[in-house]
């Protein structure tokens, strides 16, 4: 059993949480965006996490039951929110319709801020795990010194 597995798992979680953070920043940055390449106002995005088996470990052939339960995190999809845009009355806006309403992205700032905090905490927890792994490895290296 190796510690590289633990490091692999924790680092997969780190990159997943970082991607989640990127997506949340994109949501917050585009809170007033009315023009996108796919047409219409910006739509809120969300990451979809899924557990995936770690490929390429030697042990998976032998110690299958335990190895199967050791899974890394992967972002399998970035889902696009299908909520209709929020209609705001602003007749002078260039994208306003004939009635003077503009379709704005329906993004709740508070919700996004809470998600940022959640992502940060999860990231920190995984950093703590990596530090614990490092201390265990260095302790194991001290054997026989």
């Amino acid at each position: 059993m190796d510690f590289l597995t633990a490091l692999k798992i924790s680092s997969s979680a780190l990159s997943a949480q970082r991607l989640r953070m990127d997506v949340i920043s994109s949501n917050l940055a585009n809170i007033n965006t009315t023009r996108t390449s796919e047409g219409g106002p910006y739509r809120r995005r969300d990451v979809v996490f899924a557990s995936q088996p770690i490929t390429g470990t030697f042990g998976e052939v032998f110690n299958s039951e335990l190895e199967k339960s050791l899974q890394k995190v992967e972002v399998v999809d970035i889902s696009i929110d299908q909520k209709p845009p929020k209609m705001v009355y602003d007749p002078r806006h260039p994208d306003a319709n004939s009635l003077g309403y503009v379709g704005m992205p329906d993004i709740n700032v508070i919700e996004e801020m809470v998600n940022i905090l959640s992502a940060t905490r999860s990231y920190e927890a995984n950093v703590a795990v990596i530090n614990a792994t490092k201390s265990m490895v260095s302790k194991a290296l001290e054997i026989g010194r």
Partner: protein
Amino acid sequence: MPSEVLFGTTMVMLEKLLDFQSQRHNMLSTNVAHVDTPGYKGYDLRFSDELKKAVGTKGTIPLKRTNEQHLPSEANKLKGLKGRLVLCNDAIHRRDGNTVDLDKEMAKLAENSLYYNTTAQIVSKKMNLLRTAITEVR
């Protein structure tokens, strides 16, 4: 087995412990990594029951086999020991079907890595004892 000759079954037991604790560390890291994955079920590894069974209720270290025709050595029993996977249902209050309680997992992780460091320290000290025995006789 050279380590058995030099240290008896204690070393086998310590080896097993280090092995198990690193496995448990991997398992707990997986749980922490999946704290935001919907529907993920957390697992833990248990070892103490298996160890108790192998060592016996009195906690005695088993006898050494001096002849091939004797019954199999108990050290072999120790070597075959494996942790048992247990599904943990600590946080059933979550609506996304995830069963990971981050606080509990971090506490377990800290506890387990302390145990690991302690075991490694004991192995180290045992090595030192042997080294002293080898070098200090003049």
